[in-house]
């Protein structure tokens, strides 16, 4: 299977050293999130992939091509990589109209065809009416779409997005997150999204690589990485949260019933969930009780079996199987009272407001 593979080393005077390696298949699931705290080297990796920065050592291969091979002194310039880059602040050309921005890469294309292609991309991004305007007359969300259109117009083979939503105000960000995911899906172009925002990672990514202090620590499906961090370092970066794929069943009185594996949960309805979402539950919001002898009909009371118990400072980390994998953090006292050990039966309670739904598509 063709893949994007790199192993790069880049250090800066008086700065951190980035030593990152990753292999990403270029197939159906197109969006890889490069997740990490600020200063972890995400942008350096992205700039090396785009060709704007050159690693001190290592290689970058894309499909059958070698973009960088420091050993063989081979460096393909950014102009010849066929990569679309979405800058954090979008970097639109202020002296050109939206149409000229989008058509910028098509200089050698015949004028009529160029206009047609600009219109096609504009239609895809629903910005046709903005074509004659200048960038300074656009809102943040419009700028983002124009920048994306500009990157898509030359039909790139790889799309790189640097914190694509961070320049937007919160309401616009909410609105565009789902839309961006849908667009990336529709174009089918393999994409790498750099972000430090957990919600953005969940909303946009198919798979996720966690970057800490310049090194890739874990790669996997987004909810797997969030739910099962490979080590303590990753856990600290992604937080202790249960993240599980969920599907909307029904809406009622401001609540949404979602199916999570074989369990059903009521959550506060965030509004724009259409079908697929991630259900996020903080481990400390899960309350454990002795399993009742008779079945109850209380909302979000889940019967489960303890799979693992481990101490974490003053707290105990309990992994349950209650139709899906659920991690709870409880005090040592209540762990002792409930006699928690692998195989024990308990009831897990989660209040509806403690379940956050993050939509997967607009």
């Amino acid at each position, binding site marked *: 299977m063709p893949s994007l593979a790199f192993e790069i080393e880049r250090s800066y005077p008086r700065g951190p050293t980035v030593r990152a390696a990753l292999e990403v298949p270029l197939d159906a699931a197109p969006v890889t999130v490069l997740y990490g705290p600020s200063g972890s080297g995400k942008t350096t990796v992205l700039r090396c992939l*785009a*060709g*704007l920065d050159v690693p001190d050592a290592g290689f970058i291969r894309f499909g059958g091509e070698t973009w960088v091979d420091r050993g063989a002194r081979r460096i393909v310039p950014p*102009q010849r*990589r066929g990569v679309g*880059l979405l800058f954090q*602040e979008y970097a639109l050309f202020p002296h050109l109209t939206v149409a000229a921005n989008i058509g*910028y890469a098509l*200089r050698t294309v015949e004028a009529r065809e160029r206009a047609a292609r600009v219109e096609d991309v504009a239609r895809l991004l629903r910005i046709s009416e903005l074509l004659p305007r200048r960038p300074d007359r656009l809102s943040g969300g419009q700028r983002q779409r124009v920048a994306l259109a*500009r990157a898509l117009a030359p039909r790139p083979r790889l799309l790189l997005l640097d914190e694509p939503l961070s320049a937007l105000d919160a309401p616009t960000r909410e609105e565009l997150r789902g839309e961006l995911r849908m667009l990336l899906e529709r174009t089918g172009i393999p994409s790498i999204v750099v972000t430090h925002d957990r919600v953005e990672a969940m909303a946009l990514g198919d798979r996720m690589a966690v970057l800490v202090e310049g090194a890739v620590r874990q790669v996997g499906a987004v909810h797997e990485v969030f739910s099962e961090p490979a080590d303590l370092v990753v856990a600290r970066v992604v937080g202790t949260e249960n993240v599980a794929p969920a599907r909307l069943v029904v809406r009622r009185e401001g609540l949404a019933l979602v199916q999570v594996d074989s369990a059903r949960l009521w959550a506060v309805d965030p509004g724009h969930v259409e079908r697929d979402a991630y259900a996020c539950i903080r481990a400390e919001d899960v309350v454990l009780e002795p399993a009742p002898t008779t079945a109850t009909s209380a909302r979000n009371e889940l019967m489960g079996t303890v799979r693992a118990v481990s101490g974490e400072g003053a707290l105990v980390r309990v992994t349950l199987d209650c139709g899906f994998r659920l991690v709870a953090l409880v005090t040592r006292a209540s762990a002792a009272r409930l006699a928690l050990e692998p195989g024990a039966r308990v009831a897990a309670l989660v209040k509806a407001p403690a379940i956050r739904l993050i939509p997967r598509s607009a």
Partner: protein
Amino acid sequence: MDLAALRLSLLLSTLTTLALLALGLPIAQWLATTRWRWKVLVEAVVALPLVLPPTVLGFYLLVAFGPSSPLGRAFIAATGHTLAFSFEGLLLASILYSLPFAVQPFAAALARVDPRLVEASYTLGESRLQTFRRVTLPMALPGVVAGAVLAFAHTLGEFGVVLMVGGNLPGATRTLSISIFDAVEQLDYASAGRTSALLLAVSFSVLVLTYALQRRSLLG
């Protein structure tokens, strides 16, 4: 008023400005983007004509243009006349003399161009040269125009260097400022006054234009 001197000065200023655009833009772009540690040396050389007395610059040029220097000999071999006391010599001297007036505004404007715009152009497939033409130059245009205008005005009014390397040959090296100096020496204050008023008006308009352009580039 000395119309031949006016025509000569305008021609000299125009050619000098064009030459400085061709020569100054690459130098300025290099100064604006290089990370070479000894870049200050080049900056200092470019700025020298600002602080050097025109007579000092003129003296060195006169020596360099003379028939005993390699440059002077090569020029005589190619054209049959000397570089000193000729229009060509005057043009070369003017280019050097006005260099900082063009290069400094060019470099300042080019340095202010957002490097991300340049990088965006690279990722969109454009070469360095095309990027300079399509992004860097349009973004820096007010500063480039300001530099060109300053170079033009400065050449229009130069005196010391002209006197040293050009002399006072009507139609070849007798520029406006030389003409004024001449008129005063002959006590023809009326003629000197008219020419001076013209230079004053031109200089003032040029500066108003330059500041207006710079203001616009800062605002937008």
